[in-house]
């Protein structure tokens, strides 16, 4: 069908005075494939839209160019209008003659406006239009990790009617819940929480649990991930629409930073919790307990929180004198400032250092030497127990999984890159989410918010309309494709895979739901096999041509 173009010029209420609209009409009206040039004053208002609609229908054009304000403002509106007229909404091209022309320069800019409109016309001639359609998606979700975050994610998804499968590496669910002393401000103990969540999961028909199992392979893309789950010797394959990673974190005590080995009196927070759970078993009540936080790792929100909680628990259960050595106390999570105040009020003493404290053990006791900047003097503390600084680290297997997923980790090795567009729970790969400790050390409040937001995002993705896409907007031409894998290597969203077309040939296929329409692949394909409709090489060069 030959191109028949309708051109609408909007002078924005007559305010674009430095553009000579009749001149533009005179100039462009002569072009052969332009059916009409209409000058309007207010295309974006109801009456303007009506005028566009009636003119398009009357003249039966198959491409529309609108010269008006920024497409950032009006594009969606006009696209919807076209769609309403039964015309493909991608047959529209907009020339920004307001923000980037009339308003940006003094004096007459008719020439520039003319050229911008020519660029849009050139592009419009080559537009093909894109269909919209719904991609079938698998509505089941895989949750990797059966700790608090994983369990809670599954339970919440279930409440939205979404079926999940939990894969847990250990033989039981629960993760760190089984190791915690208590939550500040929460009456439920971690143990009770663990018990009730386990019971709920057992009773929930929407949740299937694999323990002592791990993810062996991830293939496919959002809506259709093919996962191989390894459980002992057995392996099984299953398909999921989305994946939530909730693999948690691990902690490591870092006495090596102080050239020490952990031993009887240099203990972890975890060991302290065990002592506090059964204080009667202690041979001797420790008189003095020291904590060291925020030195090796200044990203110490979680270690600080547990130091504060455990210091208070020590006061409650053992009544020892407690000294906390820190650099800066991390109070930037909900309730921590209150906790800190309570700890001070209970007589926990906080000392601040700038330089690394020197720590050594002798005669069953531990000596800490530091310069307390608050006192401005060297201080020495002999304590019966030193609770060493803990660093939150990514769980084992994070590296393997992230390379299997082809997803960047952050500078500390946690899941998810530091890119702001992926915050809070998304990854560069659509349909893959990270919640809780595995994306960085998080307090329980933040982890809970994480879970709800990942569940919300999954629900949005899998709900009707969530998988509505522009079909083959970015497409690899199977005739031109040489299967060189370049596009697959550069795609930041893991949206391209090789598929077999016949017994001999493999070609790249771009998955519409996973694709985020950046065009990096189209720019790099050495065979120029990838076409990005709306931003194809021809279309971009046609715009360049107009200058």
């Amino acid at each position: 069908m030959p191109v028949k173009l309708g051109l609408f010029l909007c002078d924005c209420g007559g305010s674009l005075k430095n553009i000579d609209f009749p001149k533009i009409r005179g100039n462009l009206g002569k072009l052969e494939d332009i059916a009409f040039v209409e000058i309007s004053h207010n295309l974006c208002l109801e009456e303007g839209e009506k005028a566009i609609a009636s003119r398009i229908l009357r003249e039966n054009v198959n491409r529309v160019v609108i010269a008006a304000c920024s497409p950032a403002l009006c594009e969606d509106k006009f696209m919807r209008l076209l769609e309403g007229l039964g015309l493909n909404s991608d047959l529209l091209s907009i020339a920004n003659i307001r923000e980037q022309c009339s308003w940006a320069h003094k004096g007459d800019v008719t020439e520039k406006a003319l050229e911008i409109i020519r660029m849009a016309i050139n592009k419009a001639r080559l537009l093909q239009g894109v269909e919209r359609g719904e991609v079938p998606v698998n509505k089941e979700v895989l949750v990797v990790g059966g700790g608090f975050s994983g369990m809670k994610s599954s339970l919440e998804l279930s409440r939205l009617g979404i079926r999940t499968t939990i894969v847990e590496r250990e033989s039981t669910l629960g993760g760190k819940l089984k190791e915690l002393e208590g939550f500040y401000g929460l009456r439920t103990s971690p143990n009770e929480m663990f018990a009730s969540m386990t019971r709920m999961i057992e009773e929930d028909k929407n949740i299937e649990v694999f323990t002592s199992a791990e993810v062996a392979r991830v293939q496919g893309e959002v809506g259709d991930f093919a996962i191989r789950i390894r459980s002992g010797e057995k392996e099984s394959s299953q398909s999921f629409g989305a994946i939530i990673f909730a693999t948690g974190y691990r902690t490591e005590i870092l006495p090596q930073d102080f050239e020490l080995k952990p031993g009887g009196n240099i203990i972890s927070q975890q060991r302290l919790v065990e002592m506090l759970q059964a204080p009667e078993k202690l041979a001797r009540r420790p008189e003095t307990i020291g904590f060291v936080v925020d030195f090796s790792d200044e990203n110490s929100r979680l270690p600080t929180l547990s130091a504060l909680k455990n210091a208070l628990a020590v006061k409650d259960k053992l009544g020892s004198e407690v000294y906390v050595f820190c650099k800066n106390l991390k109070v930037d999570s909900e309730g921590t400032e209150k906790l800190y105040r309570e700890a001070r009020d209970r007589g926990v003493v906080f000392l601040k250092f700038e330089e690394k404290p020197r720590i050594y053990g002798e005669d069953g006791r531990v000596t800490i030497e530091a310069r307390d900047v608050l006192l401005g003097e060297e201080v020495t503390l002999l304590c019966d127990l030193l609770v060493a600084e803990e660093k939150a680290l990514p769980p084992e297997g994070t590296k393997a999984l992230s390379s299997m997923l082809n997803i960047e980790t952050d500078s500390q090795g946690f899941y998810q890159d530091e890119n702001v567009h992926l915050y809070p729970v998304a990854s560069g790969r659509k349909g893959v989410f990270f919640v809780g400790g595995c994306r960085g050390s998080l307090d329980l409040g933040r982890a809970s918010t994480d879970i709800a937001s990942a569940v919300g995002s999954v629900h949005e993705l899998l709900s009707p309309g969530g998988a509505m896409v522009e079909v083959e907007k970015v497409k690899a031409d199977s005739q031109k494709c040489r299967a060189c894998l370049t596009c697959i290597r550069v795609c930041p969203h893991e949206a391209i895979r090789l598929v077999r077309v016949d017994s001999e040939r493999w070609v790249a296929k771009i998955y519409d739901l996973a694709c985020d329409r950046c065009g990096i692949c189209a720019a790099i394909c050495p065979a120029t096999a990838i076409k990005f409709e709306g931003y194809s090489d021809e279309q971009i060069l046609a715009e360049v041509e107009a200058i």
Partner: protein
Amino acid sequence: MNKSTVVIGGGISGITSALELANSGFRVYLIEREAAIGGQAASFCCKATEVCTKCSVCLVPQSLAKVAVHPRISILTHSMVAGLSGEMGDFKVEVLRKPQYITPERCIACGICAEVCPTEPKAILPPSPEAIPYCYVIDERLCLRLRGEKCNLCQGICPTDAIAFDLKPERQELSVGAIIVATGFEVFNAREIGSLGYGRYPNVLTGLDLERIFNREGYLKLPTNGKEPKNIAFVQCVGSRDESHGYCSQVCCKYAMRFARLIKHQNPDAQVTIFYIDLQTAGKGFAQFYQECRESIRFIRGVPVEILPTPSSELEVRFENISEGKVERETFDLVTLSVGIAPRKDSWDLARILGTNLADYGFFDTKETFNSVETNVEGIFLAGTCQGPKDIPDSIAHGIAAAERVMEVLEKCQ
């Protein structure tokens, strides 16, 4: 069951909730008190140097643009919730829409009205260059007509008949299944700490002022003479971690350090000093960012007690340098107070209308600890900083979390 929702507040959390719900098939009424949505975060500036410093401000215009055109979201600007009845699944929300003199649906932002407006500064302007909806509003304090004089210039010339001075407040009732409160925060009013001289000395600014200066001008200049400042101080914990604000505002250390880096980047000769009590360097990649900052920015443990102008109109700051154990005086040409996040004063009124509780210090209260989106009223949820301090990513997460809870309860109602 009613599958529509009211979101009160069009800041980053509110629009995130609205988008999430609308994309999942819910109808959303977004109620905004001001003339444009976007809230506080929309007035912030990108703090990137050569590289992104993860302030997340760029996420706001993206979401705003999507909300503006979403067919399932209705934006009610200049509106407030005036009453509530019913219960979860069947709330009746009474909304009061203040007269706005310009019909947003009719305004095409051509700017002809501003050309003829006789006042200086103009009484009719868009609230910001990126305002959504992008339409003009009349400043009641400047408009001659609204101050009782005879002037009809803008109304007479408006090509789309968008201006009408005789509009009355409108009341309307919305039937919805659930409500999300996302009314945001106020920055702490630095005038409350008189000794720091905010409001008295023009070169004492707040973090919010800095956001707006950078957003508008692209670089920092002294309010007094328009020159680039050479010696800048940041004072942390202004309106945080004290008796009446017993919490850390979570954002100030981050924005102060980002601003410090940005200033240093734009003007390498500038001296930047940050006064602090405890630096909050937790969060993704931030400890590393802090290490980088330390190379070029001076950090002093100890916060200033008083700021006084010198005869040469610089600012003399008195503080204890804790690491030295000494009281010191130093002069700066600009001091920024890193003001914290405070609850909105009108939260009280809204809480009374909705029947929700307020927590310590005046933030909206949650039903239980660690479930920061549910309130004591079934079907009313919280999103963003109305519940407590949050940065932009955390507010977005919270916004989605609140939407998820709404989906859950409305799904159950079915």
